[in-house]
């Protein structure tokens, strides 16, 4: 199924929770989902036999300065099609439900997104920093991040 057809199928099932088709000029399209309905949509994508998304490729985030986005790339081995979900989150306190119990692969990806961007995943079994040290200040991939001058006495310049 093309991504546009998957979008249509989701739109007829979850009317307001799914946004409009974005009509991208270049690159891929995406399916925008409201943050509160991410879990029902994800469960439907996983269990519906015509969609059957069993492989979560990646979970990431993009800092859009005015808002924060969480992006999910899914793939189905049975039908060999893929889906891209996007969730718009509040920039001041970005939080969304965790998908770690639906797809175990999400575990580390969500930890990394929390580490580098600060998006909180509610319901994650072990939401800690994964790449940076535990006592690192700040979330580096945010657009307003300043490099620290020193870390534990080691100068950064």
């Amino acid at each position: 199924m093309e991504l546009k057809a998957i979008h249509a199928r989701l739109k007829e099932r979850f009317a307001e929770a799914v946004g409009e088709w974005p009509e991208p000029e270049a690159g891929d399209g995406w399916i925008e989902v409201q943050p509160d309905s991410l879990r029902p949509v994800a469960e439907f994508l996983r269990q519906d036999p015509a969609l059957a998304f069993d492989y979560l490729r990646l979970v990431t985030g993009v800092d859009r300065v005015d808002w924060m986005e969480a992006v999910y790339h899914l793939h189905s081995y049975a039908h060999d099609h893929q889906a891209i979900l996007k969730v718009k989150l509040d920039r001041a306190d970005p939080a969304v439900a965790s998908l770690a119990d639906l797809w175990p692969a999400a575990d580390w990806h969500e930890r990394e997104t929390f580490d580098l961007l600060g998006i909180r995943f509610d319901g994650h079994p072990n939401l800690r920093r994964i790449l940076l040290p535990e006592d690192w200040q700040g979330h580096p991939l945010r657009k307003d991040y300043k490099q620290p001058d020193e870390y534990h006495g080691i100068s950064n310049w």
Partner: protein
Amino acid sequence: MSPATTPTLRQDSLKTDELLVNMGPQHPSTHGVLRLVVRTDGEIVRETWPHIGYLHRCFEKIAESVTYAQSVPYTDRMDYLASMNDGVALCLAYEHLGKIEVPPRAQWLRVIACELNRIASHLMAFGTYGLDIGAMTPFFYGFREREALLSIFEKMSGGRLLYHYARIGGVCRDMDSDIEHDIRKFIVQFKTAFEEYNELLSWNAIFINRTANVGVIPPDKAIAWGLTGPCLRASGVNYDLRKRRPYSAYEDFEFNVILGEGFRGTLGDCYDRYYVRMLEMMESLRIVEQALDGLPEGDFQAKLPKILRLPKGEAYFAAENPRGELGFYVVSDGKPNAYRVRARGPSFCNLSITHEVARDCLVADVIAIIGSIDIVLGEVDR
């Protein structure tokens, strides 16, 4: 003692306790700076927690700060054993977003470079896996062929390990008859060497005992945990990006996808993952032979503006690396540098299954499992 059953302890009058052992970031068998915290009950491992981040080199932030062309060499350092493949993957992501046409000769040159690098990477996996298990000889034999390959890469690109060969729109240099002659000589040399490797390790009874029935990953678990590449195919799932979503002229070549089948033990054990890599080396050799025979004429790089700007939008592109699916999610807003680049390293996802698989086994089995997943920490931490 058969490793298929959980080893049991002898009842003694001594009081025993569980111990948290730290296989720290500096360890001879962890393929780089990986930290494993292991909860052991004597020699039996109850649980393993991998800790990563000891090589986090900020690739994603750097890709936002430098131009598109300048961000490509940083991918070499991500999976430093398959440097050609990394560069090709990022260039393809940019080309996919910018709808840039790559000339056919450049595509075929990329295929030759990627497949030769696949052989080099699998040779390294073979050699270091032998070292982990305790066999020192395969390492030296593997490096003999690897040095031949590295001389070829040096002629192609100028570097021995990190090449920056793939550029946006093509490759950096053309290939001449001197390099072709070297590659053909290597192909002949490799065919005999492959028999030697099998005799050293693949048919070695000790090696089979150490790796068969160890670290079994069933196919549904492999899919759920996001495994890709030889680890996934060794569990029986038939998915190779070169066949399913062909890129860079891979549809013109004839090769088989190697699947695990429980060669010496169960489907999806360490031996399967190892042997799938060995057979993949021969398939890569076939592709290189076909590519040399049919290399088209033409440019080796497309004409691009001096300051490349990609259109506003986003794209995801994945290539089949020796370790799995290396994907790049690129978001652009029309400027000369990217807005966001997310690198989906295959080793990052493959390593996450360690917590599930390395439990109720021996300490030596943990080493065998990590070695068979074949991680490169540069890709895990980026």
